[in-house]
């Protein structure tokens, strides 16, 4: 139960961060990506703020090897740059540029009850399930 509760609080804090930083607003994302237009560097500061916490957080976690609840850390171990990584990142980048939504902000934007975030999330889920159905080792 405490595991789920901690995950809920983590998601809430993460989502409040997305909301306050306006990452839930696609026009804000497009403003950052539009480097030759009226460029808005805000997203760079969001990344710097987040990394200021995650860089030390991962370094500390690595030294302890277990979580505060005494469970094992489950971190990815791969270091190779393979074609799926490259192709996937490119496809994601095209989609992100077209809609201004990436997965986290799109889920938070469902809270507005607007049709557009719902359509985006539905299509994203279809895409994810499609890959998982066709792929032999998901993850």
């Amino acid at each position, binding site marked *: 139960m405490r595991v*789920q509760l901690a995950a809920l609080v*983590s998601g809430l804090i993460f989502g409040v961060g997305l909301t306050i930083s306006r990452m839930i607003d696609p026009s804000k994302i497009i403003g950052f990506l539009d480097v030759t237009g009226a460029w808005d560097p*805000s997203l760079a500061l969001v990344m710097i703020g987040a990394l200021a916490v995650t860089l030390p*957080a991962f370094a500390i976690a690595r030294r302890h090897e277990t979580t505060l609840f005494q469970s094992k850390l489950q971190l990815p171990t791969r270091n190779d740059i393979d074609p799926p990584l490259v192709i996937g990142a490119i496809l994601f980048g095209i989609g992100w540029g077209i809609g201004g939504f990436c997965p986290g902000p799109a889920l938070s934007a469902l809270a507005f009850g607007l049709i557009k975030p719902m359509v*985006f999330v539905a299509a994203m889920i279809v895409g994810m399930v499609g890959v998982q159905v066709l792929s032999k080792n998901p993850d």
Partner: protein
Amino acid sequence: MMENFTPVSALVGGLLIGIGSALLLWTNGRIAGISGILGGLLRFDKSNLGWRAAFVAGLVLAPVLVSEFGPGIAPVKIDANIPMLIVAGLLVGIGTRIGSGCTSGHGVCGIGRLSPRSFIATLLFMATAIVTVFIMRNLPV
């Protein structure tokens, strides 16, 4: 130039995104990668369903929290039309699963743990998104 720049809210929001990721790591031992968490949820793998559903519920409830108990939220502006959002959603869903992550998993957490895969992925999706926006801005429509 830069009339839309909001440095304080961007930095504070970024810190909170980092804190949420750190909390999930320290308590659940998991990467706060949204596409991976949602992808796992969609596989209905029973042993891992609880924390994934709880994290996603937190993400969806967060704006309600900010609007009811916080400073309120200015309306969002979504310029893409419905067909564009369907294409964008499909590409984001397919791309993040093939490429093992998105802005959070690769950008915030992957770079945070100094993963070479995540550095490359983040550079690629940022560059591709910038080129995509440039092309769309300059289409004669």
